[in-house]
């Protein structure tokens, strides 16, 4: 009997370990945070809807192996988000454009984001000014330094050769040559005189 129980136990353990389980997927607490993001921001009775692309990115982040929001973490994050939301309402911030010239508000909201990420052991880094369509970037790293998410204002990427700088360069070179030509001509004339 003991032998049968031992074999059964080993079989159960083998099956359990044969199926790898990651934190990937969206759990109930993560879904509550997604619902919160989609519905919580109401200004003058009107919900400020988080766009589908941001919700898609949030779902992807919650699918990360590194993130598995517990009940306690959910409560802590929600409290931070409530504070951030109150700040946004107080300052009438309803769209990205409102942040473009308001660095103080941007930094304050980023700080709330950093606090919320820290609850999950994540860190938030930035490159450039975050509303800068070409260079702004917000990066979220997990505790092991893996990049969970990157956010840049442009949804659609630039997928052609950047020719603006080449044009500026050509213009600069042409200007230098033109000025050089005029100056040399002028000095030659002075010499001849």
């Amino acid at each position, binding site marked *: 009997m003991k032998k049968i129980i031992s074999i059964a136990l080993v079989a159960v353990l083998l099956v359990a370990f044969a199926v790898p389980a990651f934190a990937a997927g969206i759990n109930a607490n993560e879904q509550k945070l997604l619902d919160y993001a989609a519905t919580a921001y109401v200004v003058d009775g009107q919900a400020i809807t988080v766009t589908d692309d941001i919700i898609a990115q949030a779902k992807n982040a919650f699918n990360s192996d590194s993130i598995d929001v517990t009940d306690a973490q959910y409560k802590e994050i929600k409290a931070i988000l409530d504070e951030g939301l109150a700040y946004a309402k107080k300052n009438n911030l309803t769209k990205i454009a409102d942040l473009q010239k308001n660095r103080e508000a941007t930094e304050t909201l980023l700080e709330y984001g950093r606090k919320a990420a820290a609850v999950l052991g994540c860190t938030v880094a930035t490159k450039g000014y975050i509303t800068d369509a070409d260079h702004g970037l917000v990066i979220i790293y997990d505790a092991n330094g893996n990049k969970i998410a990157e956010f840049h204002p442009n949804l659609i990427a630039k997928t052609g050769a950047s020719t603006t*700088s080449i044009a500026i360069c050509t213009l600069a070179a042409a200007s230098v040559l033109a000025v050089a030509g005029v100056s040399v001509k002028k000095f030659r004339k002075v010499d001849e005189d």
Partner: protein
Amino acid sequence: MRTNSESNRSRKNYRVSFWVLPIAFFIIGYLLFYFALAPVIEPAKSIYGLAFSNVNAVTTDDLQGKDLFSGKTGVYDGILKASELHFPYVGDKWGTLTIEDIGINDMPLIYGDNMELLLQGACMSERSRLPGYGSGTLVAAHNYNYFHELQNIKEGAEVSVETYYGSYKYRVYRTEIIDVYESKSYWDEVYGDKEMFVLYTCYPNNALRSTHYRFFAFCEFLSGPKIDEYS
């Protein structure tokens, strides 16, 4: 007969013309070139590298992230549990793209679409979903290399996507040139509740300036496993 003052002036002019001005122009010109070219030096180096190498020869060594894809899985349908799958980090290679009609074979598919990643292959926007997750997958690549031929794709072309968890087939049902600053007509396809695969690149290929236009190819789902992300 030249006076001393005339001779001095002539010597001074000679110095200015042949020494001071060339040096000044050299320095100004160099600085102008430096500041103007600084933002394009890296992309230019990459373009040069791509021009003199096989576009499809991107190896896992070139990737910023991990290579999750290790060949065909043999999973063509069914339902997979998200909790049993690793999810890619930004920069990871999660699959390959093949569109035989336009000569795209086993092109790397990268998670994330920042400027550095776009030099490595076809890049999926993190603001879209991986195949099988029940919505649209938005994939971009440069028009001067990886997606140079995308504009030649025709409706009905078959698109094969091999991922680290399953094989997917799609078919192009519409192509469109969109001014992305004016129109968001791609939005419904990408963010609807249907499985979709959307490819795009800058339009036209030979534009000599930054363009607002993108060539989009919308592909409908034919087959592949579905992912249950709530289990």
